[in-house]
């Protein structure tokens, strides 16, 4: 009885994990199979003909995969840095300072959370086009510089930072910016890790926006690059396509595994003192 109680949740979670992981497993399987096996429904991990080397080398050589990855790093890194630089002071002010219209601002932020990216795509595109900024890194990054989600997440986490420590810091001579970055953010590192994972994953995998503002292959981040790749091949070589997909997924998986502990602490601790 006790054993059932102990292992039942794990069993349920494991069952839930299967449909989540299956596409990744399929991707990986396809990337090491030969073209003749691609449409097999078998999930057996060992292919009859091991074509991994061909598929991966093809994915790496046919398109500038490294270039795509570098573009991805520049865009994601740029977005993340500006998001943190702007969201942390904003969240600190909203969580810990008293000023008029604070509640209104908070309401606006929650309202802004509900606006989907797609609704803003057209005006942003027109604006960037008029400013002659299409086909630049800036065009890919700019719409995401101010993240209301980041403000909201940091606000929730900063709110629980003890007021008296901030007051002690004011008496010791910390400036508000030093309090914000050196004390309050320092106490919310798990939230920072959680947000970094959210942001990096979202923008690394984003196809929608880069497809709108970038037509130059040299600027394409990985998913858009993959799309070009698929077009070039007209969808014939699934093995190589999946090998490419596996290559661009890997950095995110590695990034998550590194930040995993902080990430989980970051999304569970909000509100806990």
């Amino acid at each position, binding site marked *: 009885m006790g054993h059932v109680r102990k292992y039942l949740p794990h069993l349920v979670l494991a069952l839930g994990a299967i449909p989540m992981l299956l596409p990744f497993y399929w991707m990986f399987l396809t990337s090491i199979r030969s073209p003749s096996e691609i449409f097999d429904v078998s999930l057996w991990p060992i292919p009859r003909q091991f074509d991994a080397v061909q598929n991966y080398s093809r994915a790496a050589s046919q398109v500038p995969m490294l270039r795509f990855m570098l573009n991805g790093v520049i865009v994601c890194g740029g977005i993340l840095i500006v998001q943190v630089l702007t969201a942390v002071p904003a969240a600190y002010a909203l969580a810990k300072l008293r000023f008029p219209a604070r509640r209104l601002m908070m309401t606006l932020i929650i309202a802004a959370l509900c606006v989907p990216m797609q609704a803003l795509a057209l005006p942003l595109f027109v604006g960037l086009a008029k400013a002659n900024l299409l086909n630049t890194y800036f065009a890919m990054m700019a719409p995401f510089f101010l993240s209301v989600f980041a403000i909201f997440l940091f606000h929730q986490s900063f709110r629980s930072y003890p007021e008296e420590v901030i007051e002690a810091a004011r008496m010791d001579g910390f400036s508000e910016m030093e309090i914000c970055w050196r*004390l309050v953010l320092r106490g919310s590192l798990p939230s920072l890790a959680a947000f970094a994972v959210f942001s990096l994953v979202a923008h690394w995998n984003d196809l929608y926006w880069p497809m709108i503002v970038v037509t130059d292959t040299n600027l394409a981040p990985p998913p858009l690059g993959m799309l070009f790749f698929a077009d070039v091949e007209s969808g014939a070589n699934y093995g190589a396509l999946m090998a490419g997909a596996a290559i661009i997924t890997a950095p995110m998986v590695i990034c998550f595994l590194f930040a995993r502990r902080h990430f989980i602490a970051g999304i569970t601790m909000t509100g806990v003192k």
Partner: protein
Amino acid sequence: MQPQSLELQGIEKSFGADNVLKSIDLAIRPGEFLSLVGMSGCGKSTLLRIIAGLETPDRGTVSIGNRQVTDVDPSERNLAMVFQSYALYPHMTVRENIATPLRMRRLSFTARLPLIGRMIASADTLRDIATSVEEAAETLQIGHLLDRKPAQLSGGQRQRVALARALVRQPAAFLMDEPLSNLDAKLRAHMREELTGLHRRLGATFIYVTHDQIEAMTMSDRIALMSEGGIEQLGTPDELYQRPASLTVARFIGTPTINLLPVEIGMSGRISAFGQEFGLEAAAQAAGPATLGIRAEDLRPAADGLAVRVLRSETYGADRFVTCALVQDQSVRVVMRQHAGESLPSEADGLLRLGFAEQRAHLFGADGRRCDVSARARVAA
């Protein structure tokens, strides 16, 4: 650093419609241990925060020494504050916590930056800071805890670290906001003693906020008893106990709580309760209902006193507290304090007559202020 005087003039503060402080004037002498005491919500913490500069008064001025600091930043006032929750920096070690006030004052912004700061800061200054930290830690006997993080310390140890962080900067005055209220009773009594010891040793000005009248009575040179945003009475612990200026003060100070009798002041100034006269006389213009306050230790069994029924008697080693209800009005309870050795001359059904020394009674008029009272020459029966 010489101990500094502090002066508050006409301090007013409202939060919205809530009038928290109503024109406070208070002069604190250099080197004095002054307690701000009162019920929660009386404005004592707000007043302390105004002195600290964490709150801005709507009106009035704050001066430290001879310098007006009303609009000066908290860090420029050279005050140290010990918070109720100790407010240690959670990610720093004890050593870094204590060093922080000095680093913030003596090092430039760049020299305070992590990593590169160490290369910029002058070695002499860093050595000075390290020495001061060691000394402060020594004073509070926390030298062995310097490399721990606050989370690894007990409540009492955190308290000491907070004190060390306060005294390392040699402030013009120490501000303490209920620093002992998170400690258990035994440790609290011990820290009370240490705080008074520290005050004597440093000779610094202490302003101490508490809701605990025992802390205020045992530690302070003077007490400012606050109520509803004003100072009810300012005086030594003895003055507050012996000559409470109002009913509020009388009720707040002293354990057990002072006994209060509803009395009537006659046209001639004679004071009576339930038709029974005492040998007491007030000014005739005070005529009307009033309250007579008598401390538990001033009540004595007396043949011509008020009739009471004994409800219970509790012995605390040397003392005994006898709780009684008035025979004329059961809702009025009084507590008499006597030596445990004394016997209680009680009549068969628990009835007792209690009297008191006239000069030890406190009379409060209908407005709650203290009234003069004199013992009336006894007329021979």
